């Protein structure tokens, strides 16, 4: 008969059965991934930076998916090539598993639970490491090359990058002085010691204002600091309409009129994707910055 007691009894029974069931249902338990003979043939890259590297490392047929961010031209250095890859993903176990990959490459900062779940289902997941310097980027390219069985290509990619950086170094080595550079991104962040931007500025023979102030990592810098420290060059990332506005703002801000960089109109914008990438495309950022910092040393060169 329908009464409170029977309903509660029913609920109690259901809960009991539920608990019993979920503790006795067989789990997949870390399935050992099927031994792959040879290098992975169905690679899913779920992270923009590994997209960029992998598109230069492996044959396109082996790359079945890239991250959805790779299509965004303001962020990605491979927006055109990414269009040709059949699938776009984010780090979602169901989405990725459904593509039947034999290797998934994720970036740092991906959901640990998602990574665990993929591994529990027997999918090999390669997690890229932190990129805090140009050396880190190079090591990461080599590691990724090993993971996908393309060590030779990775070494070639790295040596090309190193060659380009050396050429930049040779040019700017002749510079009389190294200008004080402030890198400023939207939100007021600058990159101090231990960041890729710091390495790029030094590679272009500049002095990083944030590093000289003793800042580690990406931190906010106040406008007041800007005025007091007087950078000679202000470097902005040019990514979107918002950043173009920042550019105008910096040039016209009354408080900044006295800053040397503003007075001498040495406020430059470089597409952000060359400055905050963690792939070999970072070299492009170094080359462009070098030209901007030391135009005299590059005059006579054809415009890139």
């Amino acid at each position: 008969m329908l009464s409170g007691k029977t309903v509660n009894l029913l609920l109690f029974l259901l809960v009991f059965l539920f608990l019993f069931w979920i503790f006795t249902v067989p789990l997949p338990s870390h399935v050992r991934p099927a031994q792959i003979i040879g290098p992975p043939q169905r690679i899913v890259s779920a992270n923009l930076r590994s997209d960029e590297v992998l598109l230069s490392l492996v044959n396109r047929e082996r790359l079945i998916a890239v991250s959805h961010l790779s299509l965004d031209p303001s962020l990605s250095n491979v927006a055109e090539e990414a269009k040709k890859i059949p699938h776009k993903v984010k780090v979602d176990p169901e989405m990725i598993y459904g593509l039947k990959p034999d290797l998934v490459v994720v970036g740092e900062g991906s959901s640990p639970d998602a990574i665990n779940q993929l591994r529990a289902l027997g999918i090999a997941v390669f997690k890229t490491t932190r990129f805090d310097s140009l050396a880190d980027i190079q090591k990461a390219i080599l590691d990724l090359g090993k993971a996908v069985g393309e060590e030779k290509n990775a070494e070639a990619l790295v040596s090309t990058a190193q060659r380009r950086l050396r050429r930049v170094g040779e040019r700017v080595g002749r510079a009389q002085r190294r200008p004080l550079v402030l890198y400023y991104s939207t939100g007021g962040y600058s990159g101090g010691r231990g960041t890729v931007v710091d390495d790029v500025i030094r590679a272009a023979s500049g002095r990083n204002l944030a590093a000289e102030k003793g800042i580690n990592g990406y931190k906010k810098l106040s406008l007041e600091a800007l005025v007091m420290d007087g950078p000679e060059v202000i470097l902005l990332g040019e990514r979107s309409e918002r950043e173009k506005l920042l550019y105008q703002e910096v040039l016209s801000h009354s408080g900044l009129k006295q800053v040397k960089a503003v007075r001498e109109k040495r406020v430059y914008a470089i597409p952000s994707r060359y400055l905050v990438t963690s792939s070999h495309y970072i070299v492009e950022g170094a080359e462009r910055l070098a030209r901007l910092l030391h135009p005299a040393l590059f005059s006579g060169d054809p415009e890139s």
Partner: protein
Amino acid sequence: MDRLQLRWLLFLLLLLGVSVGLTTAKGIVVIPLKDIGSIFFSQLPWLSSHVDPRMEAIVLHIRLPRVLVAALVGGGLGLSGAVMQALFRNGLADPGILGVSSGGALGAVIALSFGFASEHIFFLPGMAFLGSLAAVSLVYLLASQRGAMPLSVLLLSGLAVSALLSALTSLLLSLTRNLFLLRETLFWLMGGLEGRGWEHLRIIAIPVCVASLLLLAFSRELNILISSGEESARTLGIHTKRLTQILLVLTSLITGAVVSVSGVIGFVGLVVPHVMRLILGPDHRVLLQGSFIGGAIFLVWSDYFTRTLFPLEEVRLGIVTSFVGVPFFLYLLHRERRSLGW
């Protein structure tokens, strides 16, 4: 309680079962209905399935546990919300008002900043749960006075501790060099169930189910509390301080366990009890069960929309529940004003 209410409860239970079934059957990867049927039936020991084992893995090991976790999380929050609202005699009470959510968040941020949350699957929920426990203990300590635990002091302590822990969490985040940690934490704070599997289900099932069943035993006391107030309850022989303590322990256990696995999901504990009150009435002998089941249904569907509506964007679960919760909350406010004649 009458027959109608009981029938409603059974109907809601059925609705929950159907919801779980539907949301497990559908998702980003399209799996034909007859394969779903096969997979389901092959769970019976004497039948086997001829379905691609990958599809089986998606349904049984990716979707099903996630949906079940959503049900437990939603149910736990709904039930805790109903109990809190009765305990504080306030329709605005929410499971997180005593610092459980902020404690869990702080625990989670600390866990995430260690960097190996993905190597040890229980580290993150474990730290989050410890954070919740610590927060509630602190609130309890602050509010305990000789012989009584006045609700107003409890509420204020809860507010103060929540504010303090949120500030500490923000401080930790602002000091970090690691931009990825910021992003990961932010996403965790907004709630989400990606990658939640059988392990997560198992760690929260016992605390949530057992504590919820225990709470059901107090429905009579809650009815008295809410209709006559604390004084009358005491004259009727209810040991109000003890009752408050027990209820707080049980709801904190549930909410702490739930937050440790799903992050902070707002509005479920606030909105679901009100909706269930509209359907089932204020009698806690049915309202408590109804709030659990209603909360479960709500979150199962919210999670479903999170996964399917914008598959490539990061639409967090807490955002979806807020989008539903806020308009409803405003509607409640509007009704309150009307009844007060404003």
